[in-house]
């Protein structure tokens, strides 16, 4: 920053202040007695730049207004680190209100408006803030202005360590905060762990409950299936029990008049019903297969066995019937329609032949009979009535036909011929009668044969319909054949197996026995049915019990699922907290690592700065200390050690005299100002203000210092030096003379 002009009205000591056209590269002297306004000039510059001075805090700026005035104004033009000129205008009124405006010089467009915005922009444009200004730009000997430390903060800022230290401090605070957060994380995790313990969550509980529920469902399903099976068994047994009861009545109703078919149907029904019952009766687990059913049906099976035996006899009888039927079939085969048809065909042939023979014989008869009658008549007429007209006519006719005819010799031939013909006619007649007799015999035999076949057919049909016959009827039918062997077999049947069917007493005994046995069986089946009902009840009870357990488990599972959810939620929260803790720990490690790096960087920056400072100081310090001190170093804590040429060693700050301290301090501040200008001024020149820098200098030292100042740094181009007076003004390019009692100061630099 280079100050190009400064104007103020009613501020500090001056009613009117105007420093115009200040040279950018110059050594400027400000002189004047005490309270003549020398420092007020610097204060006015500071006020223009930062809205405050080292005596006036921002909240009491009204004290800067000239006594008796209501407001003050300052305007300063400076060259910023961009190389351009900027204009700051500030006003203050007696009520403490301020205004500020920053523009590019020559333009009315505000770059910033308002004290805060202007301050921020000014710091950016000049490259230093208020603190750096009073540390490096305005170097006053007065302890009220600077700190006791030789520009420690500036050195820190210039070397770059200050920012690094700031960040390190920030990170240190963050580490503390993060460690506190870790403690909170741990506490929260402990609380969470306590909640988890109180939850008493067992990860195996839900699988166990679900497994038990699944097993209960399977058992409930099994019991339901079993109950359904028992219901089916009961229904079947009930159905077959009904059949058994009906069969019992059916057996009781059987009598000697009952058709064979009914006996056989009853017999078959008994077997079927008992088999079905045996099939439907449940197996006893402790018995062999079918054993329990056999025990239940034992009585009925006895009836069945007796019945089987009786029916076996009946079957034997029916075998006889079948044999008889076969015989009838055979007979029918011999004399049946086919044979009859053959015989009829033969008979018809015989009839045709007899007819033909009879026709031929009839024809012969009729051929022979008329001639014989004629010949015999003629013979009679001629022989016995030759005179008759008829005889005469006849003789004439014959004579006419047969001229050789001679009545006497030829007339017997009429008799002979007529007689022969008559014999032939008679023979033909009897032959014709014989043929008729043959035909009639055939017809009679055929009729007889047809009758016999019809009888056999009727017998066969009766045998075939034996099912509709009672046993006695069947026996009668068979006995009607009047076959001795058959009759013997029938007699055996009547006395043996067939007694049931023909003997009333035997039938009654069988009825009583079978009815009793069937009754016992019904009772046994009912007992079994009751057992089935009990099993059904048991299975239904089991099913209900399992269903109830399933319901209980359902509730337990829901509760456990809620616990699982809570446990999962706690786990998630814990995982989240642990992640946060881990992340926080990571953040701490990162910040510790960052702090380590920052300390290392600060250390190295300071070493670098020291090296650079040493170079600068080695040139400047000898000029300002009569070549007695050559350079100094700043340790990491920014304490100063100075190399003494006389002692050939570094000595501490407190070991040197006050005058030398001031010389070294001036050199150090110049060095820091140059460094600040290097970094902040952006390659532009820098203003530096030295307020009473030579208070402890003798005249030679002052002269040497003034000669050395312009050569200290090419960056420090505008050097303001304030003193009550200078013995020699020749080194200065501009002189600003302040007079006590004058409130108007106007200087044109040109």
């Amino acid at each position: 920053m280079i100050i190009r002009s400064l104007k103020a009205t009613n501020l500090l000591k001056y009613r009117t202040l105007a420093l115009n056209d200040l040279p950018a590269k110059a050594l400027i002297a400000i002189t004047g007695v005490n309270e003549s306004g020398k420092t007020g000039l610097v204060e006015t510059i500071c006020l223009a730049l930062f809205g405050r001075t080292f005596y006036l805090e921002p909240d009491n700026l009204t004290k800067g207004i000239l006594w008796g005035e209501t407001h003050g104004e300052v305007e300063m033009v400076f060259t910023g680190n961009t190389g351009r000129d900027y204009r700051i205008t500030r006003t203050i009124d007696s009520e403490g209100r301020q205004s500020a405006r920053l523009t590019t010089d020559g333009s009315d467009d505000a770059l910033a408006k308002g004290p805060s915005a202007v301050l921020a922009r000014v710091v950016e444009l000049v490259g230093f803030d208020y603190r750096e200004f009073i540390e490096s730009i305005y170097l006053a000997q007065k302890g009220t202005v600077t700190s006791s430390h030789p520009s420690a903060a500036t050195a820190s800022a210039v070397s770059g360590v200050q920012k690094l230290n700031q960040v390190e401090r920030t990170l240190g605070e963050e580490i503390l905060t993060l460690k506190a957060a870790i403690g909170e994380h741990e506490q929260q995790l402990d609380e969470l762990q306590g909640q988890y313990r109180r939850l008493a969550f067992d990860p195996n509980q839900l699988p166990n409950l679900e497994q038990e529920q699944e097993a209960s469902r399977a058992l409930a399903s099994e019991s339901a299936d079993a109950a359904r099976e028992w219901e089916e068994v009961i229904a079947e047994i009930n159905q077959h029990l009904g059949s058994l009861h009906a069969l019992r009545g059916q057996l009781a109703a059987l009598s000697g008049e009952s058709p064979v078919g009914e006996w056989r149907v009853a017999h078959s029904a008994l077997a079927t019903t008992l088999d079905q019952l045996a099939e439907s009766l449940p197996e006893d687990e402790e018995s062999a297969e079918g054993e329990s059913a056999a025990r239940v049906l034992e009585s009925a099976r006895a009836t069945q066995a007796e019945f089987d035996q009786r029916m076996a006899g009946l079957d034997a009888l029916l075998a006889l019937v079948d044999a008889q039927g076969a015989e009838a079939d055979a007979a029918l085969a011999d004399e049946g329609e086919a044979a009859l048809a053959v015989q009829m065909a033969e008979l018809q042939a015989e009839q045709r032949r007899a007819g033909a023979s009879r026709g031929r014989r009839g024809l012969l008869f009729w051929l022979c009979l008329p001639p014989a009658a004629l010949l015999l008549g003629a013979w009679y007429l001629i022989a016995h009535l030759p005179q008759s007209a008829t005889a005469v006519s006849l003789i004439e006719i014959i004579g006419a036909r047969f001229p050789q005819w001679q009545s006497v010799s030829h007339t017997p031939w009429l008799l002979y011929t007529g007689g022969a013909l008559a014999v032939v006619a008679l023979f033909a007649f009897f032959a014709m009668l014989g043929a008729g007799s043959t035909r009639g015999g055939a017809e009679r035999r055929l009729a007889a044969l047809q009758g016999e076949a019809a009888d056999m057919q009727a017998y066969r049909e009766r045998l075939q319909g034996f099912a509709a016959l009672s046993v006695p009827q069947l026996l009668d039918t068979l006995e009607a054949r009047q076959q001795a062997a058959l009759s013997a077999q029938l007699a055996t049947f009547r006395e043996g197996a067939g007694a049931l069917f023909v003997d009333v007493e035997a039938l009654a005994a069988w009825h009583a026995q079978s009815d009793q046995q069937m009754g016992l069986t019904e009772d046994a089946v009912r007992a079994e049915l009751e057992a089935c009902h009990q099993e059904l009840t048991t299975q239904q009870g089991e099913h209900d019990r399992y269903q109830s357990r399933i319901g209980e488990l359902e509730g337990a599972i829901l509760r456990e699922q809620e616990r699982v959810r809570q446990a999962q939620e706690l786990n998630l929260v814990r995982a989240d907290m642990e992640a946060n803790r881990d992340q926080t720990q990571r953040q701490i490690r990162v910040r510790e690592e960052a702090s380590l790096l920052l300390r290392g960087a600060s250390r190295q920056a300071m070493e670098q700065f020291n090296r650079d400072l040493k170079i600068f100081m080695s040139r400047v310090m000898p000029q300002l200390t009569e070549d007695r001190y050559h350079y100094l170093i700043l340790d990491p804590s920014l304490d100063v050690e100075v190399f003494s040429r006389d002692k050939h060693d570094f000595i501490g700050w407190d070991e040197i005299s006050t005058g030398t301290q001031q010389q070294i301090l001036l050199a150090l501040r110049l060095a820091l100002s140059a460094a600040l200008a290097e970094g902040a001024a952006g390659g532009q020149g820098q203003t530096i203000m030295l307020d009473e820098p030579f208070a402890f200098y003798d005249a030679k030292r002052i002269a040497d210092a003034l000669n050395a100042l312009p050569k200290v740094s090419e960056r420090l181009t505008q050097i303001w030096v304030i003193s009550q007076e200078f013995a020699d003004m020749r080194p200065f390019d501009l002189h600003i003379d302040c007079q006590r009692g004058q409130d108007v100061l106007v200087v044109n630099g040109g």
Partner: protein
Amino acid sequence: MAEQESQPQEHDFRVRNALGIFTDYADRERARRENADEYFDPALHDEAVALVTSWLRHDEGGDVA
């Protein structure tokens, strides 16, 4: 003055900004520790560097990550 201007930058304070100082040091430190016997966590180092640089940038008007 002419003599001074012809001289090299003898009072080169190298007033680099803090960011430059730090990144230079961090890079050198990374290269050193990568080839040293001590344990080195590159990710931790990079994260720390990123954090500091973000703070420094924040100080210069940038954002803190």
